[in-house]
């Protein structure tokens, strides 16, 4: 397994290189530059700024310079926020997003898992139809509707929780954004768990367990639950990478200092280094969590062999 893991991690390097190259080329091909503003700058000032950020060099040299810096873990200075580096922006924002994202995933697993398994066990009942209908509503309701509603109820009307801000991960500041982010995931997890539990409950080894006269609770907990997790894990890999890198909507509505918003604002502002930095980070996290998902498969299902 160690050899497999190392091989996968080494294999990630060319993938990340492709991501960096594509992002670099696409960004530089887009019209406009990072320091083009509504007010025209004097040419000498523009030259001075471009020289400071090496934008006056040929593109290939800028590319090689960026790769050399990247190899040292230096993602460069932000063009949008002067006097700030991309490493600093990520170091400040990622923990916020990771805290909210992982809390949201934990909520999704707890609530969605319980609801989905219950719906499968009561298949065809009102509970099943009711919860699955709610799941469809949960998946279909955008976060930009849920988040303001939560603020309206819990912050403005009831004054139970703050309407935003981030005070070092204090639970009161975490609850609303995490729940707003979790809602569609709760619905996804519920639907996935319902489907996979029904599949597993219809399989031969469960029939055997029933035939042996095992009590239903034991059948579910000891035999059925583990294999039902397989489809969930393939969903969770990219989902976790997605939520820990932030949600622009949640960050904007709750005023949180995450990095999700930069996926859009940095691109619009042609902040080359910031865009490439967070793209590489997102790519690396996707690769990492997919690898973890594959490792989990092998742990859950003995039939899976990692090669």
């Amino acid at each position: 397994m160690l050899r497999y893991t190392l091989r996968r991690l080494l294999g990630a390097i060319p993938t990340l290189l492709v991501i960096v190259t594509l992002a670099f080329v696409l960004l530089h091909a887009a019209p406009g530059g990072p320091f083009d503003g509504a007010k025209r700058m004097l040419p000498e000032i523009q030259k001075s700024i471009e020289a400071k950020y090496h934008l006056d060099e040929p593109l290939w040299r800028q590319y090689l310079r960026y790769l050399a810096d990247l190899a040292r873990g230096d993602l460069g200075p932000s063009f949008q926020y002067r006097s700030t580096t991309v490493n600093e922006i990520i170091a400040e924002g990622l923990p916020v997003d990771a805290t909210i994202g992982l809390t949201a995933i934990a909520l999704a697993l707890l609530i969605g898992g319980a609801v989905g398994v219950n719906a499968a066990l009561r298949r065809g009942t009102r509970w099943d139809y009711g919860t699955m209908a709610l799941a469809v509503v949960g998946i279909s309701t955008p976060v930009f509707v849920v988040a303001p509603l939560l603020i309206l109820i819990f912050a403005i009307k009831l004054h139970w929780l703050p309407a935003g801000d981030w005070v070092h991960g204090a639970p009161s500041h975490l609850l609303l954004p995490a729940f707003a982010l979790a809602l569609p995931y709760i619905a996804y997890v519920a639907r996935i768990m319902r489907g996979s539990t029904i599949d597993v409950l219809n399989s031969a080894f469960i029939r055997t367990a029933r035939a042996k006269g095992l009590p239903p609770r034991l059948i579910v907990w000891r035999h059925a639950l583990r294999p039902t997790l397989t489809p969930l894990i393939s969903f969770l890999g990219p989902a976790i990478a997605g939520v820990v890198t932030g949600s622009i909507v949640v960050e904007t509505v709750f005023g949180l200092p995450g990095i999700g918003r930069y996926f859009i604002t940095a691109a619009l502002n042609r902040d080359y280094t910031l865009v490439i930095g967070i793209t590489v980070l997102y790519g690396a996290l996707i690769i990492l969590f997919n690898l973890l998902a594959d490792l989990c498969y092998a742990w859950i299902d003995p039939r899976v062999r990692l090669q």
Partner: protein
Amino acid sequence: MTSGHHWTLAAGALCVIAGCGGVDAPSPAPPPAASITVGSALAGVQSLDRALDDTPRSIDPQLATDVPGQRVLDDLFEGLTTVDIAGKASAAVASTWESSADGRTWVFHLRPQARWSNGAPLTAADFVYSWRRVVDPKTGAEYAQGMAAIDNALQIAAGKLPTDALGVEALDAHTLKVRLSGPTPYLLDLLAQQYTYPVYEPAIRQYGDDWVRPEHLVCNGAFVLRENVLGSRITLEKNDKYWDAAHVHLQRVIYYILVDGSAQVSRFLAGDVDWTDSFPASQRSWLRSVLGEQVVNSPYFGDYMLGMNFTLPPFKDNLPLRQALVLALDREPLTHYMREGVFQPSYTLMPPLPDYQLPVPEWSTLSDDARHQLARRLYAQAGYSDRHRLRLELDTTMLDTGSRHYLEAVAANWRSVLGAEIHIDEREFKVLLQDLQLHKLVLFHDAWIGDYPDPYTFMQIFYTGNGNNHEGYSNPRFDQLVDAAGNETDNARRFRLFEQAERLLDDDAAFIPLYYYATRHLVKPYLRGWESNVMDRNLSRYMYLLEHQGH
């Protein structure tokens, strides 16, 4: 400056007149909302929570280019002059000044008690260093040309002269002599701009770009920087070394960065912030019904218009067509119904300014029918009819819903009055900007916020060859009037020259005026020490909180 959104409007500098002194008496304020009871004594805790529209791109005074940056810098630093509670220029680090008869040489006398936040004395040499830093091309100050009024500033910024050629000189520790390239009646307003604020040379030498971090920043304003969490909040605390600290009531100011106007509203309603930088125009009526006088809406020194390209068909050498498009629009109902009455319809380039008589065109007083008929006649004269309709793209930045609906209504107005088919084409701001600078666009979004309360800041954009003259407009007579105004020392005569110049713009149908911008704030009734002002600069230095219950 041009812009598509409120926060990018900020991209240009703003300026105002400076003011002085602290606030001893409560200023007029709106009556409290039913749920808030306001007392008459100062609140025990003087901590102000302000919402800020965006993360400042820099809090280095010489590098800052946006409104959020200016708001924070107004609290951290102070120039020779500042803006008072009403947004007027007044004394700050300089207590007095005098100018020569030709208006080209000024001498400023600095307060001996002015100090940096580390206790070091603030001297005239600090201003010399800071102003040279702005115009030095190596600094990369995007607003270096803002110093154009100072002798040799532009030549230095263009790399043609050394920085010590700048027209500023420290006669002694507390006397600063400034030479100007021409009479500049708005100099005191200019000197309240953030790029003229002094910066502390030893900190910059020691820490380089990192000097703006809270642990290194030395400033001279009413507050010092305690915390700067990117994208989240900026915390300031009272600067006890400030020369007028005795009149500063607030002990702490927290700027919460809330990019979304609706998020600012939510936080205000939840009682988390006492002041918002803006609110969505589309929510005005609802907010007024809920919050009453806490909704503050006042004229702002900027306007929204549409540009027409004078170098390309169909507008090139086609005055009747340009006039037809200008005249056809029903500005009053458009702003009333489509912009919730937040903004006022405009007929001039210059927004209202004291002592300046807006040259409102005669056609604006015509009845709707008469104006429409005239527009149709001009449209026909330009060679268009129902069978040969004008078909154009209106290029604009990406719009919020309210702005999009407004422009759709403008297009519908043209269709119903003239039969013209105008389609809205939204594009990224950077893409629009590039196409504008290449003069590739025919009919386009345009907007301008004045840098300082003087007509020149608006007139310069239509000067032949100006970098922001996206219309490619050129009229030698207009240029002559602007030049003449530039050499005029008497402000009243200058204003008359600008009024004549503006009439020429209307005669030439140089642009399509739509509406004047407006400030939009939500303010708690217990927050005092502020007044609406046309430059929308409200320094925390003057503000204070009254005791209150509820939020």
